[in-house]
């Protein structure tokens, strides 16, 4: 369950619908671990820098002791500021990303699919104080993530945000999808034209889906699916036996898809 994700469905004012995959609780935990490591590292570095100043200036008469004490105070303040503002600053500067989120390709967005506003960034990070309870175990935030549809912690609900996966799909290369070899149907252009007339857009879409998703199917399911599809399309086509003999069901469907999608003339 922790690895499963849902999608945020958006419909724009222009009437276009699209989906954005929501980040899973597991990937968010990993990003959070990285962010904690960064916060700890920043805190350690800051503390060490202040220590160096304290050591070098402590020998000054009268003010030396005050500077040392001031250094301790500054350390406490800076630790608090780093913990509080790390998420705010990075998410604001990197449009919804922290170091951990960048590494795991996650991003905070507005729950309507818009980019983040400053108020949203601040509110979701302030609510972290509640989400990390009890102590720093993140129990409240985790429960909230698990029970909400879009895996939102309480800070996300208050700020109207959610964390999504950044998907960078490869640019489409349609040619690779279709028949790898020679399409034997192409030798019968008049029968191809008749097939195009008989096939509805829905049927064409089903055939194309089957071809594009064939590698996601179990071998048995794949065989049965292409057998059913091939039987159906054979009933719609008039290709002679000499060009269909020896074709597997899957190759038959790939030829059909090739005929429907690639060879059609405008």
């Amino acid at each position, binding site marked *: 369950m922790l690895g499963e994700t849902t999608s945020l469905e958006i419909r724009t004012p222009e009437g276009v619908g699209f989906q954005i995959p929501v980040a899973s609780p597991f990937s968010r935990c990993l990003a959070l671990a990285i962010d904690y490591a960064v916060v700890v590292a920043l805190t350690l570095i800051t503390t060490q820098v202040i220590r160096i100043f304290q050591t070098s200036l402590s020998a000054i008469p009268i003010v030396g*002791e005050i500077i040392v004490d001031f250094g301790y105070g500054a350390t*406490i303040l800076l630790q608090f500021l780093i913990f509080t503002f790390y998420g705010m600053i990075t998410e604001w500067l990197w449009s919804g990303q922290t170091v951990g989120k960048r590494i795991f390709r996650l991003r905070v967005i507005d729950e309507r699919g818009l980019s983040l506003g400053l108020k949203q960034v601040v509110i979701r990070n302030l609510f972290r104080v509640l989400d990390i309870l009890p102590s720093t175990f993140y129990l409240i935030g985790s429960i909230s993530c698990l029970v909400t549809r879009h895996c939102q912690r309480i800070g996300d609900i208050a700020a109207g945000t959610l964390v999504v996966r950044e998907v960078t799909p490869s640019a489409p290369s*349609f040619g690779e999808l279709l028949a790898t070899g020679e399409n034997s149907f192409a030798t019968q252009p008049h029968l191809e034209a008749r097939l195009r007339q008989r096939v509805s857009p829905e049927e064409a879409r089903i055939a194309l889906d089957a071809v594009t998703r064939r590698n996601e199917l179990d071998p048995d399911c794949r065989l049965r699916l292409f057998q059913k599809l091939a039987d159906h399309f054979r009933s719609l086509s008039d290709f002679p036996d000499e060009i269909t003999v020896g074709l597997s069901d899957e190759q038959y469907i790939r030829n059909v898809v090739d005929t429907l999608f690639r060879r059609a003339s405008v």
Partner: protein
Amino acid sequence: MPEKEDVIIVSLVILDLDKFIAKERPYWDELRELLRLQSDDPSRRPPLQEAQRFYYLYQRTSADLVKLKTFAGEVETTRFLENLVARAYSFLHADGGESVPFRPWHWLTRTFPSTFRRHWIAFALSIGTFFVGAGFGAAALAINYDLKADFIPPQFSHLNEKPSKRVEREEKQDFDSFQGRHQFSAQLMTHNTKVTILTMVTGFFYGILTIVLLFYNGTLIGVVMFDYITDGQGLFLTAWLLPHGSFELPAIFMGGQAGLVIARTMFGWGTNLKLRQRFARVRGDLLTLISGAALLLIWAGIVESFLSQYHAPQFYPWKIGLGAIQLIGLIVYLAFCGRRKKRNATEEA
């Protein structure tokens, strides 16, 4: 059958995916490049011509996505276009209202006090809950003084000491050249800010935890006040608490006020808006209240560590005077600052 023929013609046009992709691909690539430029530099403001081109490309790609979804089922290209449209949509519909530059003086003299006044009922409830808690603490101690140790948390164990003994010891202390005061001040600031933020965010649980926290803090103060006053140390108590308490307590009340605003947002009384919309309405006010409280706490932290903790009796009048001036100043500021003059009917006309 003309209708069916129309469908077939349309489907043929769209079903030629290869040609469709080849034709539209340059526009998609151009949009992707513009998005990359924006992603590399989020603060970049594109020139008008580029913005117009961007909008055209967004519309064209959106239309391509609709065509592809309607007339073809090619998954890879659909996902590619969905990603492009989602990113472009997010960029185009960014909240323009937040590009108004922040004006600190305006915020301090207008925004903060007027926001505070807008939610005065929540503040009254917050302060009321606190003092009910204080009354409870004082009453409990009046009934059974032995309960004192149960009310005082471990981090304030020094308060278990009899007040008159502490006063006797503290008043004899010499000035310590601010030894350890910076550290103490920083601890107070961070601790009180955390408490105030927690008081605010717990309002998410319909205000129950906010009320519990306010009541609990009130109980603690009630116990301490009762203890010092009944031991004849009212002057010491006033000189000790008023200089920083005049800012610290109102700041915590403001945290409670923000928490109760969140609680009201959760309940959604008097509105049929969704939770998301209700939160969007109060988000700015919450930030204003908590920022104002944080500013008060910074000053309170400095005063508490550098002034409140010095208990030389000759400074009592000065300390109480400063505390009183601060409190009155804060009340006047929050009550009157940034009020717009009401126009009378003649001026309106």
